[in-house]
């Protein structure tokens, strides 16, 4: 672990976080925040947490920034005219931002020393690290914890996304859109067509190899959603809706949820308890092959379906409203 590099990264995380709070222009704040996200993904990768790094890079720097940008296009550019922000003056924002960021940096620095310390024998983490392969058949310990030991929590987490999609669709489904953007130029469309198969392959590899390598359903589903978002932006929403209809997204999302619960119920039917893996009907397989780790491949698929369809339909719903208002775009 190279500490000068980490100190450099922490300094820039602090700097970009403070800049994001201090800037009056929201667009610049978003860009600064996404830089913070990339730097934090690098820090996570240096801490040998590639799963978290992948999630951080995809979610924070890709999806959250694009959702922020859509929200930004529908609101006014600056929070309030300069000098009128009474409740939170400039001199108060600066120490607040510095305090929060330095607390966070202190937590990260602490993690450096906790990680390099000895593991207490008999603790949960020591048990996970030594017994995972035997108990679940998965090579990726993080995936084993998310989808085997703590699979019920994962069900809860994906339900949160499900609820968010429902809420946003209910709130924003007021008007039926008439106009759609014509998309970007021919060059960008062709280039996007060239890149799409590779992005899809990458997403599929993250999703289906989640129990062997860093990644999993959540990250793979997010990359799938990124493809849908790129198609929305590059080709226009009408094209996207014609190719991947909103109905089929709903079907995919509900199908993912039902697949997850069905796998859990299979465990009960076998007598192993809800979401039972190897004690249930699922074989362990050879460690390292695609069909190993019991139900983890199926659970990754379920989570990926749910997350991918959910995030892309959130973006679609939000950008649809945007294009309803902004129909004066020349072709």
């Amino acid at each position: 672990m190279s500490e000068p590099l980490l100190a450099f990264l922490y300094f820039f995380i602090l700097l970009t976080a403070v800049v994001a709070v201090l800037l009056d222009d929201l667009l610049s704040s978003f860009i600064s925040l996404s830089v913070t996200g990339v730097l934090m993904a690098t820090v996570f990768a240096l801490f040998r947490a590639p799963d978290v790094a992948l999630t951080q890079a995809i979610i924070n720097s890709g999806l959250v920034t694009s959702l922020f940008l859509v929200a930004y296009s529908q609101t006014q550019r600056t929070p309030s005219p300069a000098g009128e922000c009474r409740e939170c003056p400039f001199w108060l924002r600066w120490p607040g931002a510095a305090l929060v960021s330095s607390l966070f940096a202190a937590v990260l620095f602490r993690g450096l020393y906790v990680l390099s310390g000895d593991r207490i024998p008999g603790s949960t983490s020591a048990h996970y690290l030594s017994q995972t392969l035997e108990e679940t058949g998965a090579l990726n310990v993080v995936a084993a914890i998310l989808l085997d030991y703590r699979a019920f929590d994962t069900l809860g987490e994906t339900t949160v996304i499900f609820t968010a999609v429902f809420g946003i669709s209910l709130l924003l489904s007021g008007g039926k859109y008439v106009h759609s953007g014509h998309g970007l130029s021919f060059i960008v469309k062709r280039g996007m067509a060239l890149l799409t198969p590779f992005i899809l392959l990458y997403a599929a590899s993250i999703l289906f190899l989640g129990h062997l390598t860093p990644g999993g359903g959540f990250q793979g589903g997010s990359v799938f959603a990124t493809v849908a978002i790129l198609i929305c932006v590059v080709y226009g929403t009408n094209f996207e809706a014609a190719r991947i209809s909103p109905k089929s997204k709903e079907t995919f999302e509900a199908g993912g949820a039902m697949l997850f619960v069905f796998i859990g119920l299979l465990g009960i039917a076998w007598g192993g308890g809800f979401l039972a893996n190897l004690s249930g009907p699922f074989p362990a397989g050879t460690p390292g092959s695609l069909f190993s780790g019991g139900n983890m491949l199926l659970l990754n698929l379920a989570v990926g379906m749910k997350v991918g369809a959910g995030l892309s339909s959130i973006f679609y719903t939000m950008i649809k409203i945007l294009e309803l208002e902004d129909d004066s775009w020349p072709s």
Partner: protein
Amino acid sequence: MTPLLRFLGGISIFAGVFFSFAAVVAILRFPDVYTRLHGGTKALSGGAILILLGAMPYAGGIAGALKLFLIAVFFLVSNPMASHAIARACHRRALANRPIDEKRRGDV
């Protein structure tokens, strides 16, 4: 063979760092959107690709080097495309030939 390749890789990384630095200077100092995009795209594509190619001998094995090469190819595809989209959007909104500093002064 390997020491020679590593030496060439080091030279390539240094050239890449120089071009990236030139890109930063160009983005900060050039007067309007088109010239900034020009500096940013050309120097940054060249810089990033040179750094990736220079890292190839250090990647440890053919697989790592091939990965870096693929990243360079995707960079070569995506970066000009993005700048093209930005330039076109600026052209449409007629922002392009306005000096940036003047615009900023006008906002404040």
